[in-house]
């Protein structure tokens, strides 16, 4: 019986909603977008704050970090490779310990020579994180440290992408850099490696023995090395930390690499803290933002529900007069709101799915565990919970508008009754609040969007067309500086001879890319001026890139000569080094015995991969091949492939490996892709702000118009024309809208003032953004004011007077 009643209620609710498509569309659009954002961010929070890592006994996994202190003051958080290896071999407080070293290397015996993200690991790694295997096996204990074994476990993606999932991959040989490895296994597709050293995808795990950093001295510290472990049963966290610290520090002091008051100790951190701790605040901040958005949307939708309840008063009055109890009326309202909230949640879940993809693209490398984002049970339960809470809230608020006294009045009036008039102050306050909130959202999103658009449209300052950057790995054979310089010159000549190549220059870093080198520059008296971006380039570099000289000249055939004392600075750096002008001829130092004289000032250029403040301040030194890199310009309508380069250079040195080969046009597009996504996202946010504002103001005014329709009917009966009523309502709404705009502007400025440091990277105060946001907001507000009134005044006055 109860089920039949329930079905009947939902059927009635469905039929009732079917007759109000506009109401349904606005409610579902508003709620689904905000719920989509909330569910996406909820999932992220669940992942970073509460969800266990997908490893057995994940809560027991600890990450070992070294802490170096001088006079008791911690110095840095990097780890000593020698120290970690010493602990690995000597410790007995840990049940199991694994070493992990991050590196990159070229897969030489593959036609594409891809550059892989590798991890050198000891066999315990696979046991600690219980690596599921798609093929073969993980490393055995016999393939551990000092075993002399060269084995590899491939990631599922590498296996699929580079080897098309070949079943015979097990046992095959891979040449990675100078070493050859035997593939013993392929990790399963669902394996989620712990992002211990960096937030990036891992292509392959190699046995520890060939780790090129393994023989590093005790004084060599790196953040690319970590260790994970499980404590020995019966050993407490403090005990283990103390024992390991003593073991480490004793060996460190014995190594002779220490200063007087220096001490090296071990910090044992839970895996969760080590990976997620830094990101948890960001996740919580995002959650607060999403909840604020939901709050605004809920306020807006509430107004729409109140407006609808006001419209339905007569129908409810009839139901009440026929004996419907308050609970039954509430149930009818709840059925309607629940249907809408469930529909919104369903669309919201779809949107959350798209949100995961967007988040993975936007926050790649910034937040851990993003590849684990998925619509899990927790998110589904949370979404249903939110839908129920919202449905109850809307039904309860709608019910509060229609008490029995009102219903009786409604029935008694029956076409001739007195109209209920909503308080003007309440109406105005609601409009002011709506406009202010939406205005803040709109100003913020417009500014972020403009910032992104400016980045997209900003001219680079040089021509990337037909330009490539090539970096080769000379291998062990060319460790000697002179040999490498000779190789670099030979390769340049070989490249120049290629038919499609128009010009070649040598530089150690691509002009546009992520990651950069900075070296401290001091004045003649060795007073530190600052750390600035640096590149080592040859005499053809500026011409090849078509980077014009602002003053002086570029380099003149001084490449590979470490005794050269010339430098070229960018205009930005020239302004820092010599604000009064006269930079040419000034001398600056890298080291005490390394004075460099400025011979030229080159125009600034924009690197979308390096947008830190002051990144345009660069200096250039004559080329020396610390890295063997080339910038290559090809002839018009020509293209260059990695394969062609490999074939051409193989004639000079068959073992040569290409470490990096990028087309600058493509690289530029990749770098600004994030800004394009950001622009698209903020455009979406701008539209959402407008939608929320529109829905909010529409809701408030629609509700108040419903309450005022009788009054409007009187005006119409007395001869008011439609435009007179429109003008009257618009003028009445103008003041609260203007106050709302002013309030929004003040809140936005105040918020920027309070969070200037955090926001300055993201947005810059922009008058144009303000000027474009305000009329947009005003137009939306005007439309939202006009539409509900129009519905009433284009009908015969008798309908308003009868509250039809």
């Amino acid at each position, binding site marked *: 019986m109860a089920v039949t009643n329930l079905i009947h209620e939902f059927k009635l609710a469905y039929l009732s909603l079917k007759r109000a498509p506009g109401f349904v569309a606005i409610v579902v659009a508003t709620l689904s977008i905000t719920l989509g954002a909330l569910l996406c961010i909820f999932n992220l929070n669940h992942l970073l704050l509460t969800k266990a890592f997908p490893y057995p006994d994940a809560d027991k996994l600890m990450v070992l970090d070294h802490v170096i202190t001088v006079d008791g003051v911690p110095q840095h958080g990097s780890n000593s490779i020698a120290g970690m290896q010493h602990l690995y071999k000597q410790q007995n407080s840990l049940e199991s310990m694994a070493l992990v070293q991050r590196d990159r290397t070229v897969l030489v015996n593959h036609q594409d020579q891809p550059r892989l993200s590798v991890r050198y690991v000891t066999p315990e790694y696979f046991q600690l994180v219980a690596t599921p295997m798609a093929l073969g096996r993980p490393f055995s204990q016999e393939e551990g440290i000092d075993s002399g074994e060269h084995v590899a476990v491939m990631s599922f993606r590498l296996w699929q992408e580079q080897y098309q999932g070949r079943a015979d991959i097990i046992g095959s040989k891979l040449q990675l850099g100078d070493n050859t490895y035997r593939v013993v296994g392929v990790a399963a597709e669902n394996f989620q490696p712990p992002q211990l050293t960096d937030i990036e995808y891992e292509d392959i795990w190699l046995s520890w023995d060939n780790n090129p950093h393994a023989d590093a001295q005790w004084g060599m510290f790196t953040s690319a090395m970590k260790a994970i472990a499980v404590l020995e049963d019966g050993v407490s966290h403090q005990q283990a930390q103390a024992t390991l610290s003593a073991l480490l520090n004793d060996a460190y002091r014995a190594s002779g690499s220490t200063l007087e008051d220096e001490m090296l100790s071990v910090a044992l951190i839970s895996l969760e803290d080590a990976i997620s701790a830094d990101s948890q605040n960001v996740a919580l901040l995002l959650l607060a933002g999403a909840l604020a958005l939901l709050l605004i949307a809920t306020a807006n939708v509430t107004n729409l529900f109140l407006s609808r309840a006001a419209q339905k008063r007569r129908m409810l009055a009839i139901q009440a007069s026929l004996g419907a109890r308050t609970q039954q009326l509430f149930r009818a309202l709840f059925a309607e709101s629940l249907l809408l909230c469930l529909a919104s949640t369903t669309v919201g879940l779809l949107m959350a799915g798209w949100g995961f993809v967007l988040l993975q693209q936007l926050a790649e490398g910034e937040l851990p565990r993003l590849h684990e984002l998925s619509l899990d049970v927790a998110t589904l339960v949370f979404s249903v919970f939110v839908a129920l809470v919202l449905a109850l809230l809307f039904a309860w608020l709608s019910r509060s508008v229609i008490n029995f006294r009102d219903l009786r009045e409604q029935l008694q009036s029956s076409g*001739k009754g007195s109209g209920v008039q909503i308080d003007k102050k309440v109406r105005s306050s609601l409009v002011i609040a709506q406009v202010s909130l939406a205005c803040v959202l709109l100003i913020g999103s417009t500014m972020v969007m403009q910032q992104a658009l400016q980045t997209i449209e900003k001219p680079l300052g040089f021509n990337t067309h037909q330009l490539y950057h090539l970096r080769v790995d000379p291998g062990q054979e060319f460790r000697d500086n002179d040999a490498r310089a000779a190789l670099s010159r030979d390769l340049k000549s070989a490249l120049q001879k290629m038919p499609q190549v128009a010009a070649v220059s040598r530089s150690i870093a691509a002009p546009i890319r992520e990651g950069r080198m900075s070296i401290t520059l001091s004045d003649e008296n060795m007073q530190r001026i600052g750390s600035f971006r640096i590149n080592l380039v040859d005499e053809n570099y500026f011409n090849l890139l078509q980077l014009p000289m602002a003053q002086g000249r570029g380099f003149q055939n001084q490449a590979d000569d470490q005794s050269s004392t010339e430098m070229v600075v960018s205009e930005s750096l020239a302004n820092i080094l010599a604000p009064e002008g006269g930079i040419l001829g000034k001398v600056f130092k890298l080291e005490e015995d390394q004075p460099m004289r400025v011979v030229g000032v080159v125009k600034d250029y924009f690197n979308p991969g390096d947008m830190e403040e002051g990144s345009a301040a660069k200096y250039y030194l004559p080329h020396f091949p610390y890295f063997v890199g080339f910038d290559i310009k090809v002839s018009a309508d020509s293209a260059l492939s990695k394969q062609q380069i490999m074939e051409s250079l193989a004639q000079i040195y068959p073992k040569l490996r290409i470490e990096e080969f990028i087309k600058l046009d493509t690289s530029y597009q990749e770098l600004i892709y994030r800004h394009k996504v950001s622009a698209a996202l903020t455009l979406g946010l701008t539209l959402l702000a407008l939608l929320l504002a529109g829905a909010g103001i529409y809701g408030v005014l629609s509700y108040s118009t419903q309450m005022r329709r*009788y009054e409007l009917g009187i005006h119409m*009966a*007395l*001869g*008011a*024309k439609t435009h007179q009523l429109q003008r009257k309502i618009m003028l009445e709404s103008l003041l609260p809208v203007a106050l709302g705009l002013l309030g929004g502007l003040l809140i936005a400025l105040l918020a920027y003032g309070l969070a200037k440091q955090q926001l300055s990277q993201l947005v810059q105060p922009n008058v144009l953004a303000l000027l474009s946001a305000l009329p947009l907001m005003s137009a939306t507000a005007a439309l939202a004011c006009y539409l509900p009134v129009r519905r009433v005044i284009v009908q*015969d006055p*008798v309908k308003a007077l009868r509250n039809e």
Partner: protein
Amino acid sequence: MTTEAKIQMIDITKVFVTEEMETHALRGVDLEIYDGDYLSISGPSGCGKSSLLSLLGLLDSPTSGRYLIEGKDVSKLSINERAVVRNQKIGFIFQAFNLIDELSVFDNVALPLRYREPALSASVIKDKVMASLEKVQMSHRTSHKPNQLSGGQQQRIAIARALVGDPAILLVDEPTGNLDSKNGDAVMDMLAKLTQAGTTLCMVTHDPRYADMAGRRLHLLDGRMAESLRFQEAV
């Protein structure tokens, strides 16, 4: 008394259509109202009195038939054209007074004048409002809000508002429905005086006592005009 009808309705029908049913509120009503007429329309509930008054006041549109005011067909006018006619030719007095709570007595009465186009000057509006309020003896309450007045006083303000625009006809819907008998009688006396001064008035009432005060009495039954008597003819 002129022989030219001020208001003429020819074969007017009004049908309310819902998803489930059609309701024929008026079925072929013919009606003529002459200058200076004091007309009452009565009949049982649901007979179509209010629908007829709404059509007379151009608050609603007929389903079919012709409606002429001073010889001009107004049945096919747009919403705004009908608003002009209402504003200039018709004065309304409602059962529930229908004063705007937020406005003072003066502003309530001035409302129809403020919708005039071209706009009237403030001094003209003031003169007309004061004159109208004096007719109903309420000129001393100009700054009061409606909710500060008694029901009888509110209805007198509503009468002043109906008169302020010098309408061709006053349409009155159950003017005493929300008043006690004393105030009801006072209002009816006031309306009688207005008709004696030459105002054309059409009133819907279910009270036979007040209906009998009219010069012409119409009786509606099931949307049809059942009876039509001209007072003079009867005399």
